[in-house]
């Protein structure tokens, strides 16, 4: 099985999603971008968020493009740069912001911070820091669908660095042996903290690893939301129909430091410039305008709406209470 290398400049798969989906894609990408901007550049710097903050600026097309068409009863295992998945699955802005600001109303009620959040009722599995741990878990989720005859699928996200963990390989292999309905999606942003890809692995593509485990591997331009959507849709359909797992590698770039306290001084500036020109949001905006789905004023209006939604949510979350100290003792069995 050869991974098919796909290079395309203009975003234009053969079949386009319906107009509503296209506009949803734009909304969720822009919402992700603005929300993470507020989190990283405002709330964190104002000291309203303590601890670590990681954002997915430049990678918004991946979570949004792959989750936008999921069914409510499907399940997503996001990683640490997949904010769009939470938004699409219906976690509210207030819940997310309260989570980041360590409030009782946050997704983990203050037990954990930042993107370490989940909600089974929304099919969202909370990430643990140990990279790659979610891969065998996703396999297990898919196994439960298969053995109970349900046509649900699970999506599992991770970075390029996470594919170096043994758990990643074990989970992918088991999914392939069991032929369970899971789609593995790699955000290959070419750096793992300060470590560039060539120091992470000796093969050229993450998708090349699929061959060793006997599942299809596909490479897409992760900054082209339609390419992501196209690949994800095919893989999801295949999984739902009993065709087994797929590994999709989305080539992208981390447009920030590793976390809010990292200036990414080790990344050559030309790389940022190169990828800035391929920004997934402005590219998609151009595409939608060229095709007449939206115009400049429509985009401005959308941005205003997003700003307003986030302003409102911040105002509420900021007034939300912190947990009571004794809440520390809740939810452990002893």
């Amino acid at each position, binding site marked *: 099985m050869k991974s098919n290398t796909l290079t395309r400049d203009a975003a234009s798969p053969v079949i386009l999603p319906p107009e509503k989906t296209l506009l949803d894609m734009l909304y969720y990408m822009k919402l992700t971008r603005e929300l993470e901007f507020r989190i990283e550049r405002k709330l964190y710097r104002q000291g309203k968020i*303590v*601890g*670590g903050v990681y954002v997915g600026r430049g990678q918004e097309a991946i979570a949004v493009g792959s989750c936008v068409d999921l069914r409510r009863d499907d399940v997503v295992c996001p990683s640490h740069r997949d904010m769009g998945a939470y938004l699409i699955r219906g976690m509210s802005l207030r819940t997310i912001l309260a989570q980041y600001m*360590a*409030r*009782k109303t946050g997704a*983990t009620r*203050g*037990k*954990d*911070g*930042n993107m*370490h959040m989940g909600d089974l009722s929304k099919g969202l599995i909370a990430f*643990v*820091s*140990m*990279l*790659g741990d979610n891969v065998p878990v996703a396999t297990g989720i898919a196994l439960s669908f298969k053995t109970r005859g349900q046509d649900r699928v699970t999506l599992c996200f991770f970075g390029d*660095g*996470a594919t*170096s*963990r*043994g*758990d990643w390989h074990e989970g992918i292999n088991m999914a392939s042996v069991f032929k369970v309905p899971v789609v593995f999606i790699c955000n290959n942003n070419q750096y*793992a*903290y*300060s*470590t560039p890809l060539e*120091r*992470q*692995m000796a093969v050229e593509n993450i998708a090349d690893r699929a061959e060793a485990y006997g599942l299809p591997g596909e490479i897409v331009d992760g900054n082209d939301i339609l390419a992501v959507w196209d690949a994800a849709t095919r893989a999801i359909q295949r999984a739902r129909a009993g065709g087994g797992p797929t590994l999709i590698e989305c080539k992208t770039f981390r447009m920030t430091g590793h976390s809010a306290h990292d200036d990414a001084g*080790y990344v050559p500036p030309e790389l940022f410039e190169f990828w800035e020109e391929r920004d997934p949001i402005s590219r998609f905006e151009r595409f939608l305008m060229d095709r007449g789905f939206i115009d400049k004023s429509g985009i401005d209006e959308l941005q205003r709406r997003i700003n307003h939604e986030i302003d409102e949510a911040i105002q509420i979350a900021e007034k939300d209470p*912190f*947990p*009571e*100290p*004794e*809440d*520390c*003792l809740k939810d*452990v069995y*002893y």
Partner: protein
Amino acid sequence: MPLTTYVEAIRQGIWEEMEKDERVFVLGEDVGIYGGAFKVTAGMLERFGEWRVIDTPISESGIVGTAIGAALMGMRPVAEMQFADFISCAFDQITNFAAKCRYRWGAGVPIVVRGPSGGGVHGGPFHSQNPEMYFVHTPGLKVVCPATAYDAKGLIKAAIRDPDPVIYFEHKFLYRRVKEELPSDDFVVPIGKAAIRRNGTDITVITYGAMIYIALEAAKELEKEGIDLHVLDLRSLLPFDNEAVLESVKKTNKVILLHEDTQIGGFAGELAAVISEQAFEYLDGPIRRITAPNTPVPYSPPLEEFFLPKVSDVVRVARELYAY
């Protein structure tokens, strides 16, 4: 003389051993170009080159296994876990391969596995843990937890020179908060030896890591009301300084066991057993434990504050025990 921080002391200790002994090298995630997430290995790549300061893939099990192999061939690897929490990903290599070589076939595995542990920095459940007891429970390992810059440097040197696997837990809360003047000579702190941090007569507090500062602060408060704490810093948990523990109990006849780790299966339980087996007749009161509750380390500041043992806890328990 300038003051040296705890984090700089670790760096100096590794650096000096690398200068002296070509067999010593470091490996881990982001230790080279970046100098480590907490800058423990800053500048080492430039000085020692890429084969002695090795940036690795995100493969904790691979890192430790690689270290073991090189150590069996006579090298002295120092493996970094970016956060001590991630040592769980290398558990098998440490507890089965490294720990059981000498016992089974006489082969020493002189590796050091080190990383930042502990809470107090709002790191949440996966960047704040104190994983020492998983390894204290494993025969064949050594486990150290320095609390001062002097010990941080002296123990990392001792760990590197040790012929067996040493798990070295540094406390990230102390990295830049504690500093002291360090001697310029080539000193080591022997593994397995405790240190008295405060001499006192009424109650002994046996502790380690960041909690020594909690004990010392409590001692200052209690001094005002005439309660005189004796503070023993274990420094090493495996092996631990059994003799120093007994001596300190015999001296004050009352004892508080304090640690940041959770209670069930924490080191205090082991110490309590040792004390009651070996010094029961010297006790004038119950052995008291002050530890974190049996929960993960929570993220939100009020929860984390509740979780971590506090000066007020030590003061309260000491008063009760004093009155006993």
